[in-house]
């Protein structure tokens, strides 16, 4: 697996879909490919958010700590991004993410990611656009559950 295949994966992430290939390559190059073995956590709920991860291969579980033990709330698969909210909002991790099977992920460092957003408005707009869409979806869901 090389930089080019990572760029292909990044392209599948909605947030990065419309970004120049050269930028994605820079993002991939400044990122770090990380292997997790099954059961190894990416991060735990409450940790400081220092990086986002794009899953290149494998699956991960998202769990919340509840009084009655960990509660699995979502599953992540290939080309999913996780942890990006933490680095954008500068808040601690809101959930625990654990590798379900051996995973290969691209780790995007918080500082580097913010540098890139700073430098390239196109990337910032893409991120905003994605966040706005999520907000809209949440609003829609709220409206649904209220009605």
């Amino acid at each position, binding site marked *: *697996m*090389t*930089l*080019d295949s*990572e760029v292909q994966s990044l392209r599948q992430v909605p947030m990065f879909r419309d970004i120049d290939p*050269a*930028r994605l*390559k*820079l993002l*991939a*190059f*400044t990122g*770090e*490919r*990380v*292997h*997790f073995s099954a059961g*190894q956590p*990416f991060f735990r709920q409450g940790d400081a958010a220092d990086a986002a991860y794009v899953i290149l291969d494998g699956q991960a579980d998202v769990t919340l700590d509840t009084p009655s033990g960990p509660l699995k709330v979502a599953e992540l698969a290939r080309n999913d991004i996780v942890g990006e909210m933490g680095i954008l909002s500068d808040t601690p991790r809101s959930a625990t993410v654990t590798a379900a099977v051996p995973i290969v992920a691209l780790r995007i460092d918080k500082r*580097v990611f913010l*540098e*890139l957003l700073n*430098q*390239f408005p196109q990337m910032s707009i893409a991120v905003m656009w994605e966040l706005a869409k999520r907000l809209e979806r949440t609003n829609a869901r709220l409206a649904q559950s209220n009605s």
Partner: protein
Amino acid sequence: MDKSLFRYIWRFSKREQLAIFAVVIASLPFYFWSLELPKRIVNEAIQGGAFTEGNGEVRFFIISFDLPRLMGGGTVELFEGFSVDQLGLLFGLSTLFLTLVLINGAFKYVINVAKGALGERMLRRLRFDLFATTLRFTPSTLRTVKSSETATIIKDEVEPIGGFIGDAFVQPLFLGTQAATAMAFILIQNIWLGLLAAAVVGVQFVIIPRMRRVQLRLGKERQIASRKLAGRIAEIVDGMEAVHVHDATAWEKAEIGDRLHHLFDLRFRIYKWKFMVKFINNLLAQITPFLFYAIGGYLALKGQLDIGQLVAVIGAYRDLPPPLKELIDWDQQRLDVQIKYDQIIQQFLPDKLVPLDVFAAREKEDGPLAGPIAAERLRVADPHGSPLVEEFSFELPFPVRIALIGNGGPGPSTLARVLARRHDEYAGRVTIGGRDLGRIPEGQLGRHLAYAGPEPALFPGSLRENLIYGLRNRPVRRLPDEGPQARRRRMEAERTGNPVDRLEDEWIDYERLGVEDADGLDGVLLGALGRIGMREDVYRFGLLGRVSSQRMPDLAEKVVEARHRLRSTLAEQGLENLVEPFDPGRYNAQASIGENLLFGVAVGPAFTGRGRAVNPVVRKALDRGALMDDLVAIGARITETMTEIFRDLPPGHPLFEQFSFIDADELPEFEDILRRVAAKGLKALNGEDRSRLLALALDYIEPRHRLGLLDDRLRQAIVAARVIFRKELDGSIWARQLDLYDPELVCDAAPLRENLLFGRIAHGIADAQSRVMRVVSAVVDELGLREEVEKVGLGFQVGPGGRLLAPHQRAGVNLVRCLVKKPDIFVLDGGLAAYGEEQARHIREGLLAAFENRCFVAVLRDEGQAEGFDALIAFDGARAELRRRPATAPEGEDADAAAANVAGGHG
């Protein structure tokens, strides 16, 4: 130091000066003779004056002297001389003249060397005196003294003074007598010519110094202006942060520009005067020969002067201006140097200094400072007169642990500084054991009292050197002077008032510290570091440190053992994939291509960065391994990617520095290389371009950079080239610049950590670094190596001002430095500011326990921190109150009244 430079010089160099005087006086007869001789050459030999009476031959070089009357008079002839003809006489006299020239030259040489040595010795003494005086600056002086200015004074400004010192007395004597001799000679030959010469000299002597005085005044202004410029630049550099934060660059530029203009103006005026003086000097020098030829020639034609005399007078006159000019120079220098000296002395006035006797008594009085601490009507005010501590008296027994608290006001800290004698401007009396604090000798105070302030002063050097800084008070055992070099060093030191102590002497009193040697002291240091929670830091420094297989063979052996143990432990825990070991026969995927090829650690620049790509041995190995083209192609592929992804980043962007193979400013050049590759292919590149591409390829690490540029064939070829490289390197001039990896040996050039791992932690495995380091730590413990590693860590270089340490580490070094000297009194003033709340409490408790039988004074934030202290002094603004007394003090109403008396004056 004396107010007058001349007195200072005379006081310390009388003997040498007199010796040089003697040589000067001895040289004069020879000088006079050398002036006289041309006359004889012209008159007797050339014009044949000696052969007038038909003599074909004369006797030459008769050595004889007249006997004094007392012994009957007459002449004793020691040598009857050679009998020579006219030509013989000419050559004989000329040879004699040459000999005299040589003798005069030799005298000059001897005098100059003696002067030089004298000047250098006095310069050394002067510099040392100034430095020793600097050490005596009072704390309040130190607040206003600029370090850069003091350094400039000691280094640069005394330099011309030193140059002058050798000349101070000798030069006027030497030149004056020489000029007088020449003048006398001229006068003897012809009174008119003599008066003429004297008149010109007189004019020169009156006008020139006056003009130069103006020049000097300007020079003095220039010196002050340029010193201020230096100080101002240093201030701006120190405060650069503020300059940028407030965008004051334009303001500061204007300020410096202004100063530079002022300097320019001064310098230009100095030039104008200087060249005017030169002009007049030259004019006078040129006019006199004219007069001599004209008037002297006239007198010769008239028969009042013979040709020989004229030639000799002209010769003598030619000798006159240089000494005179130098004499005038000397006079100017004298004024100049006296001004400089006065200015320097201004900076070191006695009222800025701690009295000398506080320093002097260090040997005699060295008892402990265990005694009651008391203050009587103590009042402290800041420089503007507002009170820092209002009138306050107290008396506390020894041992005592005193807490000083205040609501963030300066009171507690001021009192702490007064007690540690870091603040000496106060009214009233402070006593320790009944002795006035101000009169306790510096040496005794320094050994038995410790003060940890908020800004620790660390010096460049190792951690260890900084920790034991307070233990090196004076040599406890001097090494014997061995060899002529050491004896000469001692002699020179004694002659110039410098210390004879040597840094190599034994400075640490191990006995007093209760240890046997330096190794034992290391143990004490580590123990102290452990108590303030710094041991882990030192361990980490140790892992970054280097182990010399030469100097520490035992440790080196254990490191190799630990290396093997680490490997097996990792395997047992199923973690062997986290570290890829260096294997002479295999490609290490986690290391760069260059590292795989060299398979060692560079010691010098020949095998780092670009040097690696142009090194002939590397090139040869690559050529013979048929790798060159492949690697250049890899370099080209890297360039392609780099130029593609970094093109739009502005130069200097942090991502460039962190990630790019290519510097921002080199990017365009690499783009040009790519264009040439596209046009003509890789083969057509010149050597320089190929080297640059090769350098990129050598830095490439596949799992980290992920450009997919390596395959098995290349990996094998690189391992094969490694063998060729080793063979080529062996015996080449670069062999010592590379420390090769050997599984059974320690690599001296690599940090201890690398030596333990002897491989690379795999890229891209989550958490690999910390997991491996945990195993390393376990293995180190298992083999009992931890303390050894920590001792290596004590050699960690802390950088200028300790900048390579974190703030809490600097504070820790400061604390340990204070504690290892086992003070009777320890004043802690903000020394824990760099620590977190929890750790500060922990350290404070440790100190309280350690000082149960000594005196501990701590400035604390609030009363809550004062738990466990025997006494508590609380400040409300500048008003202090003794709120808690030691439990041993008698209780009850009487005691309270007594305490109120003791603490009186604040009600």
